[in-house]
């Protein structure tokens, strides 16, 4: 007690950053205890992002709350023969925090909402990470390998199952399951 009285400015100087760390920790972790997302979502993953737009395959969309599939045909080109791309559909369970593959026939029975923001105000965003120029000039940048479910001051890392090695762009959100 005597030490604190004698060194009150030192104690304040050390306490202020510690209090801010506690405040940040509290504001990040506490809301997660009370607010949870409720709506699962459907997504599609292909084994290569480039070929997704340049192949002869299928394109998925939501029309009148149902999943529809249309065929994509590239113009014939003798010099370019894109490989056959395998697309897989997944349902993400937000309570279990895991993805499960689903067939197109089963997915057609789902009641979907293609809005980016879910009915309970959550959205899927990229994560962020430190910059690589250690330890100087470090700052934040987008981490394309991680995605989070974000809303109401809560963010939850998604354990997405992706079809292929690249994480960058082989995830396409289709809709929230109502």
């Amino acid at each position, binding site marked *: 007690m005597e030490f604190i009285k004698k060194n009150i*400015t*030192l104690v304040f*100087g*050390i306490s202020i*950053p510690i209090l801010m760390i506690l405040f*940040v920790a509290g504001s*990040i972790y506490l809301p997660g205890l009370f607010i949870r997302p409720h709506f699962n979502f459907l997504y599609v993953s292909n084994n290569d992002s480039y070929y997704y737009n340049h192949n002869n395959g299928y394109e998925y969309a939501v029309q009148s709350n149902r999943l529809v599939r249309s065929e994509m045909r590239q113009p014939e080109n003798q010099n370019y023969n894109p490989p056959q791309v395998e697309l897989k559909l997944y349902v993400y369970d937000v309570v279990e925090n895991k993805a499960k593959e689903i067939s197109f026939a089963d997915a057609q029975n789902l009641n979907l909402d293609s809005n980016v923001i879910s009915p309970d105000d959550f959205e899927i*965003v990229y994560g962020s990470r*430190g910059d690589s120029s250690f330890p100087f000039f470090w700052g934040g940048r987008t981490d394309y390998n991680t995605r989070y479910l974000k809303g109401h001051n809560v963010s939850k890392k998604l354990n997405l199952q992706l079809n292929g090695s690249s994480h960058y762009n082989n995830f396409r959100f289709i809709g929230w399951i109502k």
Partner: protein
Amino acid sequence: MATKEEALQYIKTLAEQKVISKEELDAAFNSGNRIKTDIVLTKKLGIAEILYYIGGAIVFLGISILLWQNWSMFGFGTKVLATLGSGIAAYFVGLLFSRDENTEAAGSAFHLIFGLVTPIGLWVVFDNAGFDASSYGSQSLISGIMLGACLLSLFVFRKNIFTLFSILFSTWLFFSLTSWMIGRGSYFYDWKFYQYRILVAAIAYILLGHAFSKNERAPLQGFLYGFGIFGFLGTAFMLGYKNIFWELIYPGLVFGTLFLSVHIKSKAFLTWGTLFLMAYILKITSRYFSSGLGWPLALVIAGLSMIGIGYMFLSLKKKYLSV
């Protein structure tokens, strides 16, 4: 030999005459009582000491460039030896030199090498262990390890260089830890959050500077006040662009800084307070008066204000801060 009562009576008389202060009395008591006080740079840095530190910084640069140029050629062992090995070796050489009063400053230069090179060594170890060594989590661990080592060394050896490194590593830990926590999602993740963290770190620096002003760590005061007030006013200035609260209180903060500069006798407060007052006048002139008065007249008013502020700076410095 005077009796205890005579000595106390004599101290009483000296205190009444304001010849001796409580701090001086405490220091004398601690010295007689063999209480360990910090080994500090109480004298001003001479040419030799400055060269020692420049040498330490050049050694650090050399090791960094060596590693950068030969990153793919060096094996893990060589990399660790060149960085972590050099850092630890520098630490013990510093300790050996610190034992002798004549080589004490050189010892601090070796501790400077330790503080700069060892984090790179830890980075190499983390990188080889398969961690993303540049991630905020790894940076928090590296800065935490370095902070622990410096605090322990400060506690045992009471050297001011460890106080400096403890402050620097705790600043790094503060930023990397908070970034790691918010890295889970993107809330807070914008420049505003960075600015508020700089503001908090700056306030902590100012308070530490004030706490150290009357003890053996007083040589760190200038550094802490300088970076603290620059960070505080700079961040408050930037926040004022987007937030009306900061815009409104900013003049109060600048004049408060100028007032404090006299009170705590700090040239850093006076200099940065003056510079940020000038910046504020230029800002409000360009934002609010350039369209109404027109640019030429606004510039004349801003220029005259600058001259007035410059005069105030010199007067305050001459009257209150000149030795």
